[in-house]
């Protein structure tokens, strides 16, 4: 197992380096002079001397590979440069938003799992029944609704029409409810479909027929055999859904003014604050890659059959 983790970690190195390179390139290739952008963002008066000095400070006069290496070493030391807007360290700004984003995404994830696990299970076990059709329609609809649309409609209904919840989300549980719900609905749609398909696949396998013929109780069969066999795939779904969650949180946080990473990123985009955008993208991709690795390892820990196969 340790060997496997080691191999996977080594395999990750080029991917992570490539991702950081692409992120750096993204900002490097934007038209215009970075020193000029920094000064404009700060609203400072621009003359040639100040511009040249800023360029020197930012290291813009050095060749491209040197700039990249400098940025990369900074990244590994947790230094992502300074924000154009207020000259504060990007890492500090990201750290401030991180907690709120984690609260939002994790609660949405928990809600989505709590809803979709039983529903997906029921739909698969009662395949073809009215219940199955109902659950599938719910899943299909949830999967087709864009998250920004759900938020706008929910906001209209709960906050303006019924006046039950605050329009601008605050730290209270009430404030969290709506953003969490709107983030969880499309995710549950996705999960239910995947869980249903996975359990249906297991139900068609020979071990299930065998267990049924041996008279093993249904409850035991479902929870100890089928559920356990589904777990490795569930881990993979979870890791992949992290992408949906991260993208969705940008939209939801912007709509509900939830002070997390997504709102920070959108704010940075509207102010052309490139170091913050860069830091946000790198952080998200590192988390995403890491979660996928964890899902792989988790799947292997649960399924001993897979342990001996090395990719």
């Amino acid at each position, binding site marked *: 197992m340790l060997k496997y983790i080691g191999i996977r970690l080594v395999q990750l190195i*080029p*991917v*992570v380096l*490539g*991702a950081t*390179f*692409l992120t750096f390139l*993204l*900002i490097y290739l*934007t038209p215009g002079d970075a020193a000029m952008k920094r000064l404009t963002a700060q609203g400072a008066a621009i003359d040639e001397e100040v511009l040249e000095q800023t360029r020197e400070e930012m290291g813009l006069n050095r060749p491209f590979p040197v700039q990249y290496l400098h940025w990369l070493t900074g990244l590994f030391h947790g230094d992502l440069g300074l924000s154009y807007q207020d000259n504060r360290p990007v890492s500090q700004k990201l750290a401030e938003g991180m907690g709120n984003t984690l609260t939002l995404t994790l609660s949405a994830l928990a809600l989505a799992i709590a809803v979709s696990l039983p529903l997906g299970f029921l739909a698969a076990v009662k395949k073809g029944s009215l219940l199955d059709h109902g659950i599938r329609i719910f899943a*299909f*609809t949830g*999967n*087709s*609704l*864009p*998250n*920004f*649309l759900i938020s*706008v*409609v929910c*906001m*209209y209904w709960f906050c*303006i029409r019924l006046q039950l919840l605050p329009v601008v989300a605050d730290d209270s549980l009430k404030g969290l409810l709506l953003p969490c719900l709107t983030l969880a609905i499309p995710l549950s749609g996705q999960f239910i479909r995947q869980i249903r398909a996975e359990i249906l696949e297991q139900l068609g396998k020979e071990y299930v027929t065998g267990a049924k013929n041996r008279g093993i109780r249904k409850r035991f069969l479902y929870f100890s055999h089928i559920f356990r066999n589904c777990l490795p795939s569930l881990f993979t779904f979870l890791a992949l859904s*992290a*992408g*949906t969650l*991260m*993208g*969705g949180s*940008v*939209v939801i946080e*912007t709509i509900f003014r939830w002070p997390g990473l997504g709102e920070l*990123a*959108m704010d940075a*985009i*509207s102010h052309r604050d*490139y170091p913050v*955008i860069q830091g*946000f*993208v790198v952080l*998200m*991709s590192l988390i*995403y*890659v890491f979660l996928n690795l964890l899902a792989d390892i988790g799947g292997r820990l649960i399924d001993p059959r897979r342990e001996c196969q090395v990719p």
Partner: protein
Amino acid sequence: MKIKQSVSKKQRRLRIRLAVLLALVGLFLLVGLLAPYLVPNDPTATSAAHMNEAPNSQFPLGTDRYGRCIFSRVLSGTGISVFSAMGLVAILFVVGTALGMACGYFGGILDAVVMRLADCFLSFPQMVLAIAVAGILGGGTGNAMLALGLTGWTLYARMARSSTMALKSEPFIQAARLSGNGTLQILVRHVLPNILGPLVVSAATQIGSVMVGIAGLSFLGIGVTPPTPEWGSMINENRAYMQLAPWAVLAPAAAIVVTVMIFNYLGDTIRDLADVKGT
């Protein structure tokens, strides 16, 4: 015999569903093409006299805060949503498949470089990268499509690569080569038809999500730029006035939901149909 019959019955039902959905998609394309001739009012014409008007005979779905006709705007938005989503998927499909086939067939350095590049793009959550790229490029339909496409091609490249690799050593490919066919001819005439099925299924299921992506970017103000009527940006423009003019949000919202559902259902149907044939 009985089993065979039930399969063909299911297939017949799926075929009917496919025909209905394709007809609906055709209708969307038609509306998208003919929108300039179908609209009752100019979709971008503003009017101070008709601000936030409720649906009436002149404006079937009311007006927004600039007095623009919502019905005309929703109708004109059809083309942008449907054509940009289908166009982007078509481009990704062609580019990804071509790259994947080349990688699978030739292997070597090309394969290593392209596949590592795909790995790198896949290490970003798609929407996060799209938001960042579209945000930096500063909006516009083309930029939004580029931003969504950066990760989208990898799906086809990976699939095409692995199926081409599996096919490469088949006797009929060798026979084709021995009978003097050029590489391009082998790839297009002999490899492509054999790997096309799963790729088409993926493309069909991708259209709906690309549509949601473009609408999402436009909603955030970094996709299709106003005053071009686009459903996502219409919802964003009018959501602040939802109490006064709910129709200005609900009409484009309904349009997105219906369109995305039809395209998603089409994707599911094509997938099921391919599945039935396979078993």
